[in-house]
């Protein structure tokens, strides 16, 4: 559960016009950027439901792209993002979808380049977001806490090995969610932490046998 703050009410400082459709879109883009980590060569953005219907007038497309390029919610670049130099060598397109099973403000980032990746997320109101899926794995990433994401081979002892390394730095685990393809196949771990984890520990986690993918996602700035 989220601790409520005065600044939920009197911020963020943001580019208009909508906290859910603009600021939320930027934050989804920022999070996708952190997860993908590489510069993509090609991006397809699938917008669902209200994002698709009213996204244009709210600059949702601009917000998503600005986030993907690393600009924050208060950046004055968002407005003219499609003319931004950083976008020049990226091929991109938007697709509008209707799907009542998806959140009203949902997006899929299909990222192509050195690796290909699908990242899904929702803008859940007041600029808050959640990354709900990376590839086919369920995640719970809000960007409010530092979050560690792992893909690994499903086998006994993995959670314990990772949490032991985290515990060495005396870092408190706020939440932990796991998911898997099937027994013995690829599994995912999504760990929210109360403080920042050091690069040396991340390296040790990456070195654990049968860990395929690690992302240390720092919390989003206000």
């Amino acid at each position, binding site marked *: 559960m989220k601790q409520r703050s*005065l600044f939920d009410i*009197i*911020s963020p400082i*943001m*580019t*208009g*016009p909508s906290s859910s459709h603009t600021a939320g879109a930027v934050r989804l883009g920022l999070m996708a950027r952190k997860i993908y980590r590489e510069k993509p060569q090609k991006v397809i953005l699938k917008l669902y439901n209200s994002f698709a219907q009213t996204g244009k007038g709210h600059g949702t497309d601009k917000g998503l792209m600005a986030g993907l390029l690393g600009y924050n919610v*208060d950046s004055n670049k968002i407005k003219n993002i499609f003319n931004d130099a950083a976008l020049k060598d990226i091929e991109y397109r938007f697709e509008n979808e209707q799907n009542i099973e998806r959140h009203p403000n949902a997006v899929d980032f299909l990222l192509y380049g050195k690796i290909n990746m699908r990242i899904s997320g929702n803008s859940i*109101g007041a600029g808050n977001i959640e990354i709900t899926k990376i590839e086919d794995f369920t995640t719970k990433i809000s960007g409010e806490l530092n979050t560690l994401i792992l893909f690994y081979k499903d086998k006994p002892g993995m959670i314990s090995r990772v949490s032991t390394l985290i515990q060495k730095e005396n870092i408190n685990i706020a939440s932990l969610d796991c998911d898997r393809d099937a027994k013995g196949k690829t599994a995912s771990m999504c760990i929210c932490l109360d403080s920042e984890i050091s690069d040396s520990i991340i390296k040790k986690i990456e070195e654990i046998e049968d860990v395929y993918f690690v992302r240390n996602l720092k919390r989003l700035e206000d």
Partner: protein
Amino acid sequence: MEYSFTTFESLLEICNKENKRIYEIMQEKEAFDFDKTVEEVRNKTEKSLKAMKEAIKNGLKSKEKSISGLCGDDCYKLLGRYKKTGSTFGKIFEKITTYALATMEENLRMNRIVACPTAGSCGIVPAVIIALSEKYKSDKEEEINALITAGAIGYIISAKVAMAGAIAGCQAECGVASAMSAAAAVQIMGGDEKQKINAAALALKNILGLSCDPVSGLVEIPCVKRNVFMAIHAITASELSMADIESKIPPDEIVDAMMQTGQLMSPLLKETSQGGLATTKTGILINKNLSNN
């Protein structure tokens, strides 16, 4: 300090017991909850305040249209009238109305504003605080006090009702912003803690049932002009409260009524653009024209 309050009653009780203002309790609570100093909380508040002033300054100079092309020159028009004849209601009225419009129009141009509590209601709190601060020649610290007071009101209401049109209609956006502003106005006017909360209650009580039915799903019609009306609404509430005209229904019960009203409101009137203004003949036509572009 570790304070716990989710109701106006408990906040007022703490204020009385500690002999402190609402903003003092709120800033100390925020500092405690998030492991910060009171100074850090106030610095962060000042950042929002500065961004609010910047948006007003930029908005007063612009008549650039919104992305949709529907809005953008209302502030320019109103300034024109005031320049020619002045407002019937004096300088403070001129400032509040133009500051609210300036901010909302900056929002629609995809320029920088402060969501307070939301982007669609971003014009109300700045208009009231900055205009009154200019009138009363308040210093920066007092402006910060006022903004934290406003924040405390929103904080308490949001313990029961999420600040989203989709949840409780415009009650939860412009309505809450108006209640926040009313308390902030009383802070600047030198009222006491009870008067601040009562002002917020009066403002909230008189917008119950306010629907969220934006044309074409955009934060433009009726949101832009509604920000102006709700800023003036806040001033009315603060004047009444400074005269100790009390809401007969206690503030917390008004929040309960607001929540219940939000639940009873049809989803068609809660940010879905499927009823009200959005589905008037003209609303539908505007939507059609925008979709064809």
